[in-house]
């Protein structure tokens, strides 16, 4: 195996943060592909540019996604990365692993791939970084035979992801991990066989804290919420005060709706005016607790900035019950997909389509009523349309 000098990358072994260079070197020590990756990346550092070609279409039989083809643009120099495809393995919901099961994957990856991974990709998959085309089929056979499957890529449903929710968080209003798993299983066909105008992502958070950044990066963001009061444990409030918390400044004054008050001993919440933003609850978890009915808010449309600027997801359904088997939600989502599939141009995300066509046709297609909760504010211009049916109302 060729030994590359990596004076530039060596600089990145220094310092307290775990070093990806160290990881690459560990893999390179026993793997030809990883070794050439190290060499090519050192060259990138020297020349200040990447050396990858765009991927052709590679994959496994019967699937249209799950593998990102990648080829070096200078394979003569770095033959080990001539092929360096990504193999996306769908993570279990919540990214908990029994080590026994995770070892299966490590063994297979040492056998078939570069020994390099990303734990995890931005969408949520386990990213197996770098294998050759001819390794894909046997690798897939081995992983799938052990009960693992590929994640999404291309114009398909992408691997759903969630926060850890009820597994370890006191604020989860819905069972994020279960819903995530249920959607992944229910829509396997959509996930593996790209058949849509473009990608579609689900991300599920148990509350408005949104620890999976769903509002920023999911075509469909599901966020747990409640309808009911916030129960206040006054003795716990007193403990926070005793512990040095400035309840007026840190909690009451920062409540966005101004619905809290504190008289030095008692904390009062005007629940009707609370917007359930989670600020007070998150800072005083021992003292405050939502009560009442649980469900989710559905927001639609987030995406990255190309081409018209990033979108954040928009509230479409302010409240929906969210319990297994999630039938109502699935029906809603299927209606969305149908409308999107029927109307979108290629590479048009659902948020872009809604923006193009207007919110009304979308809401009508999925059977949702207009509600003030869907907007920050009503329109500001006097140019609005009337349908014949509206005129006769």
């Amino acid at each position: 195996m060729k030994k590359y000098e990596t004076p530039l990358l060596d600089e990145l072994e220094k310092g307290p943060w775990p070093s990806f260079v160290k990881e690459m070197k560990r893999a390179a020590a026993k793997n030809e592909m990883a070794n050439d990756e190290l060499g090519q990346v050192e060259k990138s550092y020297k020349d200040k540019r990447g050396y990858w070609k765009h991927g052709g279409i590679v994959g496994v039989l019967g699937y249209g996604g799950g593998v990102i083809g990648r080829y070096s643009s200078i394979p003569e120099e770095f033959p080990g990365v001539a092929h360096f495809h990504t193999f996306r393995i769908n993570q279990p919901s919540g990214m908990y692993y029994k080590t026994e099961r995770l070892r299966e994957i490590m063994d297979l990856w040492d056998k078939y791939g570069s020994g390099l991974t990303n734990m995890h990709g931005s969408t949520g998959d386990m990213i197996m970084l770098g294998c050759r085309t001819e390794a894909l089929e046997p690798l897939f056979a081995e992983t799938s035979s052990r009960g693992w499957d590929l994640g999404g890529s291309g114009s398909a449903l992408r691997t759903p992801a969630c926060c850890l929710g009820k597994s370890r968080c006191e604020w989860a209003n819905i069972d994020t991990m279960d819903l995530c798993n249920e959607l992944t299983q229910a829509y396997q066909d959509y996930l593996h066989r790209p058949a849509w105008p473009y990608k579609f992502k689900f991300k599920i958070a148990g509350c408005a804290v949104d620890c999976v950044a769903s509002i920023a990066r999911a075509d469909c963001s599901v966020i747990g919420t409640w309808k009911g009061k916030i129960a206040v444990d006054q003795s716990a409030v007193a403990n926070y005060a005793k512990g040095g918390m400035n309840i007026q400044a840190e909690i009451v004054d920062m409540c966005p709706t101004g619905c809290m008050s504190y008289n030095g001993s008692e904390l009062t919440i005007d629940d009707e005016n609370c917007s359930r933003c989670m600020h007070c609850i998150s800072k005083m978890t021992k003292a405050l607790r939502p009560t009442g009915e649980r469900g989710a808010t559905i927001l639609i449309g987030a995406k990255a900035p190309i081409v018209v600027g990033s979108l954040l997801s928009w509230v479409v359904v302010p409240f929906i019950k969210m319990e297994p088997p999630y039938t109502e939600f699935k029906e809603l989502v299927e209606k969305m997909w149908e409308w999107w599939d029927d109307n979108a141009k290629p590479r048009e995300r659902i948020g872009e389509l809604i923006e193009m066509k207007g919110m009304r046709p979308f809401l009508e297609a999925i059977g949702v009523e207009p509600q003030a909760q869907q907007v920050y504010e009503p329109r500001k211009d006097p140019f609005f349309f009337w349908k014949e049916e509206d005129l006769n109302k």
Partner: protein
Amino acid sequence: MSWLSEQEAKQKRQTDIGPPSYKEMLPPVIAKNYGKWKYHEVLTPGHMVHVAESGDKVYTVRVAGPRLLSTASIRELMDIADKYCDGYIRWTTRNNIEFMTTKEENVALIKKAADEIGFPSGGIGSGISNMVHTQGWIHCHSACTDASGLVKAIMDELFPYFNEKHLPAKTRLALACCVNMCGAVHCSDIAVVAIHRKVPEIDHDHVKNMCEIPTTVSSCPTRAISPDPAKKSIKINPDKCMYCGNCFTVCPPINIHNPEQDGVAIVVGGKVGSLRKGPMFSKLAIPYIKNNPPRWPEVVEAVKNIVDTYAKDARKNERVGEWIDRIGWESFFKKTGIPFTFQHIDDFTFARDTFRTSAAFKW
């Protein structure tokens, strides 16, 4: 350890089975108290405890993840999990690694063991957790900077905020190696996004053989590309090109890489949670810093300056974007000493809403 034969592979393969169930992956204390947690307490930046209604407690130690991990290191991390956590481990949504144990005495042992193999603990509470990031020169054809290297350099510098020092609130950093923004960095407290600054160069001789002209033309999101029938090639209108690199993706003789001009922008003030203020986009703070590998000192310095100014000036529980909203962007530029340029002034879809329509502002 020989590869499966084609025949064997066909026999063994299964499709559409999805991932293993999460239920199989849960540590017993988690499975037992699922949905019945009562509260938690952050004990140090490196560990916290969650208390269940049953009275059960689970201690979580979080350690830094470089994200790019070798199987070798993952095996070592699993060894720790086997030793102290009944053989369970998890990753967070920001690519850190979590060890959970019911035994408080294990906490220090886990931290020590992880530290020894290069994975220090931290990232919990009001500080800086891992930087979400993307592929960079490691794997993506589209990258106009590296990802892992910049993250390493920045996190080395900000390390105290990961494992010991507090900030007014959680401070989320992220990096995207091109404007596709796979890390969804557009809603981060501070993010680095790589940009090109020059119109791509076209190797006209190869276009006719290697590219489909119509595909290339339609690849351009701003319609800057049109056919150039004379040259049997394409031409790019420099006034419309915003250097996204899409054309280069579909037509290799178009070269967008420009080592001298490629670099990064820094955007600030975004968030995703709905606490206090709703989710916010990050906005442009510094339009350009040149690529300077291996450690990008100018970028590190710029990020540090913003973090330090925020640390000094913001109120408790105030995220970067909330702080800036309170003091005003004109004060942000003044306090950080960052120059305001034409690039800061929006000229895109929502420009109109960014122009100040008020006579009230600070000098």
